[in-house]
């Protein structure tokens, strides 16, 4: 559906370099990356809102690189909803109708369906400034869907909502993506959001694509230290490999399969590292003993830092478990993780 080839964009301080991406029809594609990576610029380049320096963008096989935004058939939804403040909700939703040849009856039917589906019937005569975040989001969605675009671009649609609304809109987006043939292209800096919504994803870093693929692959098989730490693999170490063993500093760690390079990285998710007071007796596990050198409060969880010789491992422990095990800074504990939990790259 969307094919981006060697795209280069210079916009103020932002530089997109050699971006290539391919998104299939009906995909829910999520573009992730830290703030300032250039995600929104890429989104706006696809919509035709920023000038392209080099490369091409194809939509449905058509080269749209030089096409004005109004001819691309791409809806866009911003984090701040961008509803027209001087128009009522009805007029906001119907704004795009006059540019699409549509029979009055079809339009009215579609309008009715959208208003019902999104539950915004009671808002129609009001102005945007009197609506809550969740309501604004629904109206913005209705306005974009009203002209049936082939693609909807979403710029951090959930980040301005509070937790309850976020869950609701997330489900709604997923439902719309499944029931329509519209391709979704969403930008976010929140990895957990991507996990629940995306079929495919890409991670951006400083104006380039760091990795792209299925969301599962990104989650479990990061190809670089940047992606690994972005997807929450907090234990990333450079290592020397020798068969099924990796040497990290003076520690020897079992890995699932031999690496094709003598040097590289290993990564372990913090939730895969188990803390116990007694040594864990099992042959398949990597087990070490160490000293707790830090505990970071994360609400329901503690991120516990354990120093094993010169290497610091990070593990996640529920608060209840931390009290049961009497975990505290300076305590001596045992940590263990399966060889299969170690990702090698």
């Amino acid at each position: 559906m969307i094919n981006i080839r060697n795209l280069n964009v210079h916009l103020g301080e932002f530089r997109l370099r050699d971006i290539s991406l391919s998104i299939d029809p009906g995909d829910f594609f999520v573009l992730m990356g830290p703030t300032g990576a250039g995600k929104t610029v890429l989104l706006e380049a696809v919509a035709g809102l920023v000038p392209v320096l080099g490369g091409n963008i194809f939509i449905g096989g058509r080269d749209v690189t030089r096409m004005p935004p109004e001819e691309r058939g791409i809806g866009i939804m911003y984090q701040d909803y961008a509803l027209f403040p001087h128009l009522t909700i009805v007029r906001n939703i119907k704004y795009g109708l006059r540019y699409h040849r549509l029979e009055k009856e079809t339009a009215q039917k579609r309008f009715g369906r959208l208003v019902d589906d999104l539950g915004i019937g009671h808002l129609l005569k009001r102005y945007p400034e009197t609506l809550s975040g969740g309501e604004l989001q629904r109206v913005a969605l209705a306005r974009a869907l009203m002209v049936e675009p082939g693609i909807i671009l979403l710029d951090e649609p959930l980040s301005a909502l509070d937790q309850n609304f976020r869950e609701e809109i997330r489900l709604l987006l997923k439902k719309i993506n499944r029931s329509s043939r519209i391709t979704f292209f969403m930008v976010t800096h929140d990895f957990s959001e991507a996990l629940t919504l995306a079929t495919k994803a890409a991670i951006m870093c400083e104006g380039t694509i760091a990795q792209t693929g299925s969301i599962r692959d990104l989650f479990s098989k990061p190809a670089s230290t940047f992606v690994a730490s972005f997807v929450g693999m907090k234990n990333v170490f450079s290592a020397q490999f020798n068969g099924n063993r990796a040497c990290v500093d003076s520690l020897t760690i079992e890995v699932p399969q031999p690496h094709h390079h003598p040097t590289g990285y290993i990564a372990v998710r913090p939730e895969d590292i188990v803390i116990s007071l007694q040594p864990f007796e099992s042959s398949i596990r990597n087990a070490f003993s160490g000293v707790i050198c830090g505990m970071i409060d994360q609400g329901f969880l503690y991120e516990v830092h354990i120093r094993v010789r010169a290497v610091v491992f990070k593990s996640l422990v529920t608060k209840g478990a931390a009290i049961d095990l009497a975990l505290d800074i300076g305590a001596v504990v045992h940590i263990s993780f399966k060889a299969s939990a170690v990702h090698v790259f």
Partner: protein
Amino acid sequence: MGRKGSFFWVSFSCGIMVLTFILLPLVEMLTAPSGAMLRETLQDRNVIRSIWLSIYTAASAAGISFLVGTPLAYLLARTRFRGKHLIESVIDLPIVIPHPVVGIAILGVAGKNHWLGQYLHEFGIRIMGSTTGIITVLTFVGMPFYINALKAGFEAISPRLENVSRSLGASMWSTFVRVTFPLAWRSVLVGLIMCCARAISEFGAVVVVAYHPMIAPVLIYERYEGYGLQYSQPVAVWLVLVCLSLFLALRLLALPQNKAS
């Protein structure tokens, strides 16, 4: 609330001083002429004609600024390019140039010694001593105020609204008419008021380019020179009253209300 300190009282007395400084001469002038004199002045056709000319030429200057200044203000608000600051400084130039110099500068290009002046002459357009000349001068001095006010107004409108409009199929023209302009109209009005106010008060530049036909400030000056303070005051009062009521009306329109438009 606690006791107010010396800082407050110094600020307070400075404020009183400034207000007195502005209001005292104005109130004195407005109250000096008797009712009979004001009535008599109103029957003077020269006075009526000059006040009308003042309003008419200032409004024309605002109209011209609206037509050519609006797109420029939009461009300056939305784009970034090298030399933008230079262009902005050029637009501000009429604000800082001494008024008679403006008149002299305009006469320089409108005279018969200049190709532009010759060109205009061929088409029968006269700048020197004509209404056209007055409007030219007033546009020159008033335009920067319009452009600056509107530029700030455009900058306050999120470009995302325009982006969304275009993604829904609207062209840039259509987007401007349906989204940008309706959201900026208050700034447009404020800009027009500023431009008009500046234009109506212009004296130095106009007097160089066109002593006749006589705009109100020139008439007031002439009466003052010829007959003294007493004869110029009633005309001044009428000019101020007419301007104030016009601006007040526009200002009320521009005030934020419950969802006008």
